[in-house]
């Protein structure tokens, strides 16, 4: 178990949960989002191998309507 934060919300995840697992859990398509882990942008090809640990902070963003 690990306690992490996703987009400002506290979430508890299983041990060895990767960013790819996070995307799957929230039904997100990796081609439609970008991810920041502890303030650093991670390239898409690292989602699979990046296991999350306690206190990690994740930001997942997407495009929405804007002017």
């Amino acid at each position: 178990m690990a306690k992490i934060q996703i987009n400002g919300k506290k979430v508890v995840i299983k041990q060895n949960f990767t960013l790819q697992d996070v995307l799957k859990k929230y039904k997100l398509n990796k081609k439609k989002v970008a991810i920041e882990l502890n303030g650093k942008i991670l390239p898409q090809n690292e989602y699979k191998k990046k296991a999350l640990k306690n206190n990690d902070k994740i930001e997942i963003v997407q495009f929405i309507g804007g002017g």
Partner: protein
Amino acid sequence: MKKDIFKIDKKVLKSRLIVGTGKYKNLDETAKAIEASGADMVTVAVRRVNISDKKKPLLMDYVNPKKIIYLPNTAGCFNSKDALRTLRLAREIGGWKMVKLEILGDKKTLYPDMIETLKTTQVLVKEGFKVLVYCTDDPIHAKKLEDMGASAIMPLAAPIGSGLGIHNKLNISIIIKQSKVPVIIDAGIGTASDATIAMEMGCDGVLINSAIALAKNPINMAEAFKHAVISGRKSFLSGRMKKNSFAVASSPSEGVIS
């Protein structure tokens, strides 16, 4: 007449009308308005994914980024740090290098903070971004942005969302005359004729969001803007007639029945 090509950096656009995707009733209306506008580039914002609502519809499912060019913006950013963070994330989503930089100085006026904007443009250009910059209508700032490598200068006509039309025609004309990169009016346009005026003055394009999205019938208004921009551009290229202080009859005076 020579073919009139609209190019930002190396990107050729079919339409001189760029539209925003905010403030619509829903994503279906957004998609229909874009289609009616004929725009091939739209601005989009970067925001957190809503993780508590997995079924929330996505802009990308309604507006296909393979057909319509997304221009990620930094709307809502009040400093360089947030703007850089936003655009670097945007680039990661889809490899977009062409972006719209908009750093606001104040919540009430949403007027551009030019000190932060200039500083950030420099960093973005260095990182290989093609930056379209929302800016004040100050010709000196516009010139500095161009010298730094901005891909387009986007002065405001009036405050964002105000719909007041072009307020400082003199400054906008100076910017048009001095710029070698496209000048695109961003913000403040209220209705289709405002866009025609901007294009007749010689602007290379206009960026419209509120004037379309907040019209009673946004889809019809999108089409009105499409024609307004084409009309203004043609008028500009055609060269208007000379202004006269007194009447000049249109019919010949010779052969009048007496």
